[in-house]
């Protein structure tokens, strides 16, 4: 299992969260969807490591009911 960080790792989490929402401010649903997709691709490339990306995809999946 790759080393996907699941412990808190973002300094000033409230500020980051506000930045994330601010980036979507004024966007339509379609524009927000496109923004999110670009963001995911940018962050994924930054991570690069396929093991970690696989672990992140698994972590993002909704838990089975």
């Amino acid at each position, binding site marked *: 299992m790759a080393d996907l960080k699941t412990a808190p790792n973002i300094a000033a989490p409230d500020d980051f969260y506000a930045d994330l929402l601010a980036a979507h401010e004024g966007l339509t649903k379609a524009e927000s969807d*496109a923004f999110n*997709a*670009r963001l995911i*691709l940018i962050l994924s490339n930054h991570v690069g490591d396929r093991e970690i990306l696989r672990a992140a995809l698994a972590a993002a999946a909704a838990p089975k009911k």
Partner: protein
Amino acid sequence: MDQTVETGGRKIFETPLYPYGRTPDQEPGANAHHPVVIVGAGPIGLAAAIDLAQMDVPVVVLDDNDKVSWGSRAICFAKRPLEILDRLGCGDPMVDKGVVWNVGKVFFDERQVYDFNLLPEKGHKRPAFINLQQYYFEQYLVERAFELQRQGKPIELRGGNKVVSVTEKGDGVALSVDTPDGPYTMSADWLIACDGAGSPIRAMMGLDFVGRVFEDNFLIADVVMDADFPTERWFWFDPPFNRGQSALLHKQPDGVWRIDLQLGWNIDKDEEKKPENVIPRLKAMLGDDVKFELEWVSIYTFQCRRMEKFRHGHVLFAGDAAHQVSPFGARGANSGLQDTDNLCWKLKLVMDGLAPDSLLETYDVERIHGADENILNSSRSTDFITPKSEISRIFRDAALDLSERFDFARPLVNSGRLSVPCVYDGSPLNGPDGLAGGPARTRPGAPCPDAPLGDAYLLDRLGDEFQLLAIDADVPDSVEDCGIAASALRISSADDPTGDLAARYLGDATSAVYLLRPDQHVAARWTDYDEAAVKAALRTATGRA
């Protein structure tokens, strides 16, 4: 087809090249029997026939038609098939006529997002790709078949011979054939079915052909124009002239351009094919002032599928009959040529009684591996080009948007991954990899990469038989095991001052001995010659281990 334009005389694809002629097989009571019958004189059937005839295996090729492919279809041929064609003695006319290209441009919406250069690796005789109309491709194969015939090789092309029934008998095949003079029957030890994606033989034998249909239609048009578009591959996603869909422009010889326009699923094919509907679409794409003539128009739905097995007793399927891919990535004819490259030497050994029948099972193993790789790649390209859900379109557009500003996104853009040959990793024919520090690209199972040898090339000296390639190593002139011989080819890394040979075949090693198959794939390799090890690998590579 009424769209076809006369550009001075008859087009090659309107000219019968091997017209029907009555043969003695058709006389009553002839009971004709042939060692190998090939059904289909498309690119794959012709390649198989040439390969076998070069090895003096008598072949009869039956085709219900007598001309080359109607219109162009395949246009893009990769390096590996060109190398195979060199082995078959007809690489030169293809490459001389073909258009070499390296630059591609990708457009999204109204703008160009990036361009790329294939930057082909140096030190290969053949370019990464050529563009050539399928009808020329087939014409040169037919000419090569006739050349072999003149040299006395046992190859016969029978046009106007339509195969209407095939029965696998356990020790051979019985078939009946319809001709303008009526039907006749014959039998064969082996039948190679190269009868295309719609393979009637597959249907006659009740065999499966499963996979995915892509719910989309593509208008494929070849136009003749004097335009100064550069020799590049241009691909559009969602352009203004074909909203929500894709488009492709690619150059072929003789001022012929290939245009692909995605049309979507719910269309009236017959309407869309009419010149009065096609021409405005092309004008919107090319601009009003560009003069062009339509050479050929067709509408395709693409599929990715394969047979579960390519070998059914004495019937062997190859090319589109065995597997079909969408054309993004130019894999159809390219992979079909790798089928016959793989099959013919095995069939010859089995026919000569030098290898067991089970050697043919490895044709299935190795080429199904290849087909799966091609299907995976073409399915992925098709999924990128024609997104099947809202979210896949969102990601697709995100990748395209980002590709304009960031290099990282360009490898995600998939307008077709161009065909590369597969490595037969895990094949039962592979022997040991005993070359410590040897390059991964020449591991057992891999196709030999070309390399310069002085002012010649390595691949021109390989193939058609087993060989022992010795690089700065001592080997005997020939090594033999139960009638199968491998002859020596001794070279030195000093023969290639560019260092490509050493980089591709030695890596960190200072010497190497390679056992190579007749299809130019690596069977096994070592640092030095060891007779027992080479003989064992020769047995493994011929299914006798």
